[in-house]
């Protein structure tokens, strides 16, 4: 029995390898653009964009849920005057507040804004998660969400960087966009501000900023690869 198994298994492994290699070769040979359409070479970029946009959408969804939970538990008084003077620490970053404004600025600038936003929220979210886990009134669900939110910011930034690299590789945008928004530079500017924010205001600010990120990414995609689902 054992003597039979070995050659049989070797044969099976060989067959599987052949299949896979053929598959891989076909994958390479039969490229994503079979007919060499215009803009077909941008398909991988479009896919990348889609993935990033989905990622940002999920991040925004989580922040929205957490914000609603906070509103249920804390219910800040709507008559507070001081509420108007809320100031997000990212307000220093100039972001387009309208469609025309967003369409008017350059792609590189838009990409940079996105990256800046993502970088700006990396540390505050991590600390937010820390404070959340320490409080007993928060459920485990909320604590997991805050952690997920914090991780997503990291992942999304990496994804956007990849997209930017791709775009730069394709020559769509110039190479001026880089890791300009270095954490150190940002941190020095608004290092202390977010620490004084309350948790609820933090969530409010992040909810808005994640929406901005998602929207900017969509605009960017439809500006760069408009024929793929825009």
């Amino acid at each position: 029995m054992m003597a039979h198994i070995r050659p049989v298994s070797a044969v099976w492994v060989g067959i599987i390898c052949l299949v896979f290699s053929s598959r891989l070769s076909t994958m390479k040979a039969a490229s994503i653009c079979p007919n060499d359409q215009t803009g077909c070479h941008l398909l991988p970029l479009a896919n990348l964009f889609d993935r990033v946009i989905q990622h940002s959408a999920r991040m925004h969804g989580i922040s929205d849920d957490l914000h609603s939970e906070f509103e249920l538990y804390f219910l800040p008084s709507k008559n507070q005057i001081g509420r108007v003077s809320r100031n997000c620490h990212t307000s220093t970053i100039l972001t387009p507040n309208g469609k025309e404004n967003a369409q008017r600025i350059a792609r590189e600038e838009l990409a940079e804004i996105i990256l800046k936003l993502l970088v700006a929220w990396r540390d505050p979210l991590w600390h937010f998660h820390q404070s959340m886990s320490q409080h007993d009134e928060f459920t485990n669900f909320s604590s997991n969400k805050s952690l997920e939110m914090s991780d997503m910011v990291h992942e999304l930034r990496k994804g956007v960087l990849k997209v930017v690299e791709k775009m730069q590789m394709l020559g769509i945008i110039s190479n001026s966009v880089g890791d300009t928004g270095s954490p150190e530079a940002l941190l020095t500017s608004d290092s202390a501000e977010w620490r004084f924010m309350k948790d609820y205001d933090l969530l409010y600010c992040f909810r808005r900023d994640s929406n901005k990120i998602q929207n900017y990414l969509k605009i960017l995609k439809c500006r760069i690869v408009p024929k793929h689902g825009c």
Partner: protein
Amino acid sequence: MRKAEGGILLRLLLLFMLHATGTSYSPPGKPTLTRCRSPEKETFTCWWEPGSDGGLPTKYALYYRKENSDKVFECPDYRTAGENSCFFNKNDTSVWVNYNITVVATNALGRTFSDPVDIDVVYIVKPNPPENLALTVLWDQTWPYLHVSWESPQKADTRSGWITLIYELRIKLEDEDEWEEHPAGQQKTFNIFSLCSGGKYLVQVRCKPDHGFWSEWSSSQYVKVPEYFNREKSMWVLAVIFSAFALFIITWLIHMNCHNLKQCILPSVPGPKIKGFDEQLLKDGKSMDAFSSLVGANFPPTTTNYEDLLVEYLEVFVPEERELMLEETKELHNDSLKFENSTSDCDSGRGSCDSHTLLIDKSEEEKGQQPDQQSSEIKMDGKGQDEEDKYLTCSPENVDSHQLSSEKVKTWPSSFSPLPEYSPIPLQQPNSHETSKQPCLSDSLFAAGPLPSHFPHLGHNTKDEIGSSYWQFGISNKQLHLLHQQMEAHQQLQAHKNASVSNIGHLQLPSVRFTEYVEVQRVSDQNMVILHPVPSHPETSYPDWHQTEEYSKVKCVDNDNGLLLLQREGVEEGMDMCSYEELPESDPSKTTNTTFTSPCSQPAPSVQDERVVGGYVETSVFTLPTY
């Protein structure tokens, strides 16, 4: 200054006039902002509900403040959106900016502020319904399906990616009430299958931004599906019919073979039953009836059977001192069952010769008991009249030859009868020779217990009277076969046979009414020969009568009037029950199957009498030579 004074004067005059008329006026009621909506995330509109006007003309104004700014702005457009509304155009709209909006109602008496509302344009988006809904019926081979297509609302800019809309459509038949909803995602086309042939459908569609409100349903579009043949339906109908038919046939087959299947699948579990036992009788309470079926034909023996089991007795003349007990075993001719009954119950004193095995078993015992029983001889001596009173008459019953069934109830003298059911034998006068008195051979009717005790008594009694030849009959401990013969002339031993025996042999010297053959059934240990009657012509009268015993051939009569018997070589019917023994008391230790020559003083009487057949012992023969 003058204007201000004029205004104040006017107000005062107005108040005075109002006061003069007598109506009550008040500052306006509080207005409320009902909702703010943005159709495309570029503009938005807010509506408010005015409160009571207080009887005076009231003006409403909307003020807003942007986030992080204290500058108050008033609504730029009160008209575009209609009554009690404020429309914010693109220039005034900032997305991702928190607006703090307040409506103020103002009349002559005062002003009232509404509650402020914070809005962010991103979260108040409610787009317009989709446009250009188009329905088309297309064909997939033979199946029609509905192809629905629409377009995004005009104002919503989905092309630039500014808004992302997801759509939903619903469909129903014209006369139905329930809608069938289908989410369509971000696509702008949809296919609906499984349409009713010839049905008229209504379709509506709506949309929603990724974070916002659903739009209103679009206007309905109608479509009529053409008639077509639903092959799938007809196929299902056929399948159902066929399966029903098959089920019907299977059910019918099962019903026909119901019994067989039952036996196959659920074999009957044998219940505990007793053969011949009817439990219903038991339930009814008739226990005796229930058990009666269990009873064999001859068990337990009824009283009538008892009679059959009894031995036919011989009528014997017994002297007073002596008591003759003659018994004759009755042959059971064709009644093997009775034979069995009689032989099986050896303790009841039945004839041992009836039993196949018993005789052989007891042969050894007989030898042992012979010396004891030697004295217990039953002699038949001619006592005289006084002795004749002690006849032990065995009243024969039916002499019919064909009655083979039952044995006679043996009769015993009262002193001898161990069995209470047996009536004592009435003694007959010895003079009545007509009455055949024959020795009764007691068959196996004697109980084993009390009988042996009697024998010595008998033996002693008889021995004293002896003077004549007598027969000695061995008495086994199991059975009593006493054949006592008085050799006196007047003594007659008549062996009466029961109905089963054709010939009734008797020991009768002068008049022999019946002659009966006595068959030596066994020889007891006391050199006693146990005889039982045999039919004279077994082949004629009872062709099927099987003698279970051997016939002994009388060799001679010895000096002491002992009967020497020869053992018959040939065993009739293969039954070798009876073992013969030498009669003479002088030789008690004689074993069976021996022949004697020396003690014979007189040779065996020649076969003269027709009663003697083949040298078989016949009682009458023996009496003759002695007289």
